C-alpha cells in the first residue's frame, strides 16, 4: 500500500512534518544517533547534579592524576578534579555554545540570504558585498574588538561566533533561492496572488531545507571548535568553567602520561559530532518527500 493511501486513513495532520517524522523514524542510523545524542545531552544536564560530591570545581591535590577507577570513572586531572564531572560540565558549555551560536547564524543567515536572493538585482549585489566585507575581517580581531567594547561576557561568545558563522549560511541560502525563484511553481504562486513572505517561507525555504540542515549540522561542531580556540586565547570560557574544547586541549598536552585526560572528553566530543552528522543526514532525507522509501 502506498504512502498516500495509508495517510488518508489518519485523516488530518499528515503534514510535511508528520511525514518527515515517520520517515526519520525509519532511518535506523538517524534513530541510533538521536538516542546517543539525547543521552549525551541528558548526562550533561543532570550528571553534574547527581555526582555533586565530585564537583569539578573542588580542587583536591592529593587526588591529582588518578587513573580511572570505581570512585573516579574517568580518573582525575592535575588538580584532582573528577574528569567525568568535568567532561559533563564542559559538555554543557560546548553544547550551549554550539546550538545557540548555530541558531543565531541560522536565523540571520536564512533571513538575510533569502531576502537577498529573492529580491535580487542591486539590492542583492549590495547585501552580498556587505557579506564579503564581513568575511574579510579577521575573526579573532573581530572578537577581541567585541570583547574590548563590551567587556568579557559569556553571552558575547554566542553572539560573536554566530555573527561570523551566518555569512556562509547566507551565501548558501541566497544561491539556492536564486536557483529556485524562477521555477514555474513560484511563478504560479505569484499568479495565484500569494504574498512575497508566503512564497519565501512557504514555498522557497521548504525546498532548500536539505542544504540548510546539512550546513547547520556541520556548523554545530565547527562552532564548538571555534569556542575551544577562543577559550585557548583567553577570550572565551575561563577556568574553572570548562568546555570540551578546553579539556581536549589540556588533555592533549599530557597525552603521553595521562591519556584519560584526553580520551574521555574527546570520546564525548566525537560521539556528539558523529550523531549530529547522522541526524543531519536523516533530517535531510526525511524532509524530502521524494526520498520516501515506500
Amino acid at each position, binding site marked *: 500500500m*502506498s*504512502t*498516500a*493511501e495509508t*495517510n*488518508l486513513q489518519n485523516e488530518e495532520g*499528515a503534514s*510535511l512534518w508528520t511525514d518527515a517524522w515517520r520517515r526519520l523514524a525509519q532511518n535506523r542510523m538517524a534513530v541510533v544517533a538521536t538516542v546517543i545524542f539525547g543521552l549525551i545531552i541528558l548526562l550533561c544536564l543532570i550528571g553534574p547534579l547527581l555526582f555533586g560530591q565530585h564537583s569539578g570545581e573542588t580542587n583536591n591535590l592529593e587526588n591529582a592524576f588518578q587513573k580511572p577507577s570505581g570512585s573516579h570513572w574517568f580518573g582525575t586531572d592535575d588538580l584532582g578534579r573528577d574528569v567525568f564531572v568535568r567532561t559533563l560540565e564542559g559538555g554543557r558549555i560546548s553544547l550551549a555554545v554550539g546550538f545557540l551560536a548555530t541558531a543565531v547564524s541560522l536565523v540571520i543567515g536564512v533571513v538575510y540570504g533569502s531576502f537577498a536572493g529573492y529580491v535580487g538585482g*542591486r539590492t542583492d*549585489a549590495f547585501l552580498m558585498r556587505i557579506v564579503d566585507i564581513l568575511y574579510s575581517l579577521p575573526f579573532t580581531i573581530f572578537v577581541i574588538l567585541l570583547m574590548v567594547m563590551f567587556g568579557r561576557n559569556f553571552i558575547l561568545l554566542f553572539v560573536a561566533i554566530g555573527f561570523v558563522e551566518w555569512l556562509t549560511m547566507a551565501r548558501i541560502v541566497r544561491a539556492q533561492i536564486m536557483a529556485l525563484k524562477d*521555477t*514555474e*511553481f513560484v*511563478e*504560479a*504562486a*505569484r*499568479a*495565484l*496572488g*500569494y*504574498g*512575497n513572505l*508566503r512564497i519565501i517561507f*512557504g*514555498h522557497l525555504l*521548504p*525546498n532548500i531545507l536539505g542544504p540548510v540542515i546539512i550546513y547547520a549540522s556541520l556548523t554545530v561542531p565547527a562552532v564548538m571548535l571555534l569556542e575551544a580556540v577562543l577559550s585557548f586565547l583567553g577570550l572565551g570560557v575561563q577556568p574553572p568553567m570548562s568546555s570540551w574544547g578546553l579539556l581536549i586541549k589540556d588533555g592533549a598536552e599530557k597525552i603521553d602520561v595521562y591519556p584519560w585526560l584526553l580520551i574521555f572528553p574527546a570520546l564525548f566530543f566525537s560521539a556528539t559530532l558523529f550523531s549530529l552528522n547522522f541526524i543531519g543526514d536523516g533530517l535531510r532525507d526525511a524532509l524530502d*518527500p*521524494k526520498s*520516501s*522509501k*515506500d
Partner: protein
Amino acid sequence: MPLLEIDNLKTYFHTRNGVVKAVDDISFTVEKGEILGIVGESGSGKSVTVHTLMGLVPQPPGRIEGGTASFDQSDLLNASTEAQRALRGKRIAMIFQDPMTSLNPYLRISEQLIEPLLIHGMAEREEALKKAIAMLEKVGIRDAAERVHSYPHEFSGGMRQRVMIAMALITDPEVLIADEPTTALDVTVQAQILRLLKELQADLGVAVIFITHDLGVIAELADRVVVMYRGHIVEQGDVLSIFDQPQHPYTKGLLACRPRLESTFKVLPTVSDYLEETEEGGEIQLSEKPDAAAHIEALQQIEEPTVDENDLLLEVADLKVHFPERAGFFSGPTGVVKAVDGISFTVPRGSTLGLVGESGCGKTTTGRAILNLVAPTSGSVKFAGMEIAGFGAAAMLPLRKRMQIVFQDPYSSLNPRLTIEQALTEPMAVHNIGSPGDRRDRAVALLEEVGLEARFLRRYPHEFSGGQRQRICVARALSLEPEFIVCDEAVSAMDVSVQAQVLNLLKELQSRRNLTYIFISHDLSVVKFMADTMAVMEHGKIVEQGSAEAIYANPAEEYTQRLIDAIPRDSVDFIRERVG
C-alpha cells in the same frame, strides 16, 4: 544478414516496489542503412531498449534478464568492457533528447567534436580538427572554421542539436541511435533537424534508430516502425503498412490522437478509445474496444458554446514589454530587448485565442504581461473593461481570482514539498475562500473535475506522471474559479497520447465553465485544434491574425506558411509518395 539483431531481450529493474519489466521479451532487427523508428509513450521501454544496447543501463537496479543482441554478428551484451567501449561512439553512436544539457558547457565545441576521434585513435589532433570542421559544415553550420572554436552557449538549441549530430557522426558509425532528438525543439527546428538527418542518412548510408513518442515524426523519416507499449513490442512493420493498416488498437489510438491540420475533430480521439486494458492474474491483457469509430463519432456530437463576438473579456492594445540589458552593477542600460513590441488583439468571452510562433518570438512574455507577472513597458490591457496594465501586487490581488495561468513544465510548476491537497487549498486560503473543511471538499471536487481520484489528495507531485501533474496544475488554476486562463505551452512537454487527453480536458472545462483561454504554443496543429482565433507572432510583433481556420487555409505570411510546413506530415498518401 541484419546489422543489428535483438532477440527476446529482457531488461528488468529491481526496485523496492518490486520488479519493473521495462523491456519484456522484445525482438527486432536493423538492416544496414535503414531508418528504424521506435515509437511509444514515456515508460514504454523504448529508451531502455537502446540504453541496453549501448551498455548505459545502470546495473543495479537494472538487470538484463535474458535475450541476445548482436551487432555485426558479435555479441553486444556479454562483450568485455573494452570491446564494448571500442564499439560505442565509434561504430554505434548516439544523440540525446536535450541538446541544452548534452554538451559540456565548459569545453569548446572543437574539443568535444574531436574527442571521439582521439579516443578511438582514428586521427591526430590536426587532422581531427579538419574533420570536425568538415562535419560541422555537413550538418549545416555556416562559418564552421570559425565557429568550431565557440562554446556551446553561443549556439541555439537547434544548432546545438546539429553539433550533437556532427559529434555522433564524426567517427563514421554504422548505427546512429537518436533518442527523441527533436522533442525538446520547436516544430520549425524539428523539421530542419529531421530533414538534416534524412540527408545525412542518405549521404553516409548509416543505419538510424530513431526513438520518438510522435508517430508524425516517424511518418516523415522511417523505413520501418516498431511500436512499443508497456515494455512489449505490440506491432512492427514497414512504415506504410503501419500507417495504412494498423493492426494493434494501441497503434490505432496513437495514430488518431494527433491533432491534424486538416481534421475538424471537436474532441480528439485518445488511445483509451481504442485500447481496452484488463488485468488477469497479474498480467495486463490488451484488447481492442469493439466500437471505437462509432464512439469517437459520438464524441463529436457536442454543442460548442456560442461566442458573442462583442462581449470582449480581454482587450490588448499596443502592448510593449522591453527589457533593459545591463553589463554590470554600476553601468546603466546598454541596450533594450524588445520581447513584445506593440501588439494588439481582443478575446471575446468564452473563446480561445491561439498565440503561435517560434521560441523567442515573445508569445510567453505576452501571456505573462497580461497577468502582470512581468511589468509591461507601455500599452493597454483591459480585462472585463478595466484597465489593468502595470497593476502592482496589491491591485492585482482581487484579479488573481479571475485570471490564471498554466505553465509548460508540469514537473517544475508544482512545489515538490506540498501535497496535492495543500497545493489545491492554498490559493483558497490566501483569498479567504471558505472554511478549511469547505476547501478540502472543493479540492476533492476539483480533482474529480480534471479526471483524478480524491484519494490522490495526500500524495506529493513526484508520485504522478507528467500528464497527471498537468491535470493538477489545471485544477489549481481552477481553484479560484477564474474566467480567464493563459495556457503557456501547456501541452508542449507531453507525449502526443497524453497531449490529446489534456487538450480534451481543457476544451471540456471551457464549455462547462465558459472559460476564456489564451493558448500559447509553437505547434500550429495544436493551436488550430484549440483556438477560435489565432495570432502569429514573430520578433515581438503579431504578423498575422484572424480565425484559425482562415489562417490555416490561407496563410498570408511566408512565416506562417513555414510554421504550417513544419508540422510533420503523416498522411498515408504522403508516406506512399515518400517510400514509393
